[in-house]
């Protein structure tokens, strides 16, 4: 369960344990994560997402 490639985790090295499930954010992704206009939209989106979960009623039911 230990990641095999210790030296530089950002590097993609073919045929290693890591390469089989390699994932890392692109520069574009990193940019959008901090780009304030986009994040303002996300902020509104997140609040809607959270309200939707809360609208499931917290699973709190009263017995019939």
């Amino acid at each position, binding site marked *: *369960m*230990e*990641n095999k490639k*210790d030296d*530089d*985790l*950002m590097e993609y090295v073919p045929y290693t344990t890591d390469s089989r*499930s390699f*994932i*890392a*954010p692109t520069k574009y992704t*990193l940019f*959008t*994560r*901090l780009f*304030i206009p986009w*994040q*303002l939209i*996300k*902020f509104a*989106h*997140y*609040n809607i*997402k*959270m309200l*939707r*979960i*809360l609208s*499931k*009623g*917290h*699973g*709190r*039911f*009263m*017995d019939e």
Partner: protein
Amino acid sequence: MARIVVLGSGFAGNTAALNLKKALGRKHEVVVISPRKHFYYIPSWIWVGVGSMKPEKTQFDLTPVYEKFGIEFKNGAAEEIHPDDADRYVSVKYNDGKTEQVKYDYLINATGPKLNFAATPGLGPDEGYSDSVCSLPHAVKTKDNFLKAVEKMKQGKRQKFVVGTGHGTATCQGAAFEYIHNLEFEIAKRGLRNMADITWISNEPTLGDFGVGGVVVRRNGNFISGKLFAESTFREKGIKWVDGAHVRNVKEGSLDYVNIEGKEGSLDFDFAMLIPPFAGIPISYIDKDGNDIKSQMCVPSGFMKVDADYTSGAKPFEEWKNSDWPKKYNNLLYKNIFAAGIAFAPPHPISKAFKAPDGTLIAPSPPRTGMASGIIGHTVALSIIDMVKNGAEEPTYSASMAEFGAICITSMGKSMTGGSAALLTMYPVIPNYDKYKFGRNLNYTFGDIGLAGHWVKYMLHYLFIWKMKGKFLWQYIPD
């Protein structure tokens, strides 16, 4: 007139107490017993632990809140519960050594966890070699040690940081995950990233499990596991990881572990923050004849038994069911006693339990987050209100973790312009593979990372403190 006694004033206890008093008014008494007179907003301790939030901002005095609400507050620790009708009381010990017997009609045990550092030799800041962010004094000490390591890096001394869980059955991986990212963020902010080796060690069978069996979300036309999310953040920040690991012992500057495959290893460190396993707060349960009935009231780890199916714990992962999880949180022997928040005993883990070849259990305990604790505290309060006001014979409200969702905001750096957090919502908390292909309803299960997540985390800090203070419109802020 009924008297409801609430043990503990954390997320579960305080939510229950405020809702009880609001609904029951002056006709009935609500008493809160807690050894600390402050409410602690625990989720922000990860910021205290890296020095990015002042400790005072995470706590407030409950005395004026309880005065305003007309709740009686006893600043002491519950030591014994005598549950039999003829002699029904809680024995409380105050700081000055005095004791008092507090009678009750209904009792809510919301005492949270005992930090069980003793489970791993050398674990913890008091008698061991690792730090913790699970109490405020610990978080402050952790910050001091972190800043000392920062000073050393400034002097050109490379430092090794290890963050994660300190035992195979620990929970709260989410808090450790937040801490490691904030630690990395603070080091990078100071331009010292090339002086730090940062390693994650966790009992999760795979990264991103978080003790909830992992999550799958829909993203860019694919179904993606949370493992990839977690892995992506570690690669981005150059954090190494060891997963599926039980820490066998912690020594000065190093720790030994064994993993699910039986591999023994060790990690050297200059600084380690390791979350301990939790146990129930040590409270005795005594029947009318003076017999100790704790084994009937609690599971071996000391958490209180409620309406869960505890026989399911002996079954394999594949046979666990949603119906194993409690709904009403009342004790089955004494239906006027409830447990809410971390204090209730879960029937089994949520994540699959593994054993190393030598039999060492590596099984993350189920997290009972602040949100779940608030929901449960509120639900128990509603049942008691119904029993007191309308004479209901049994608890009438239910809230199973198999039927409600969770919102987890995992901070990855505290800054209003350069910070970020992972927002993860899931529904339900306990996966249901019979109903949903990936265990959860993907319309409500969602994950994303970015600055907006940090804004949400910051907003919730103030929103919840407002709610817990019982300020204007507090009751409309969701649990």
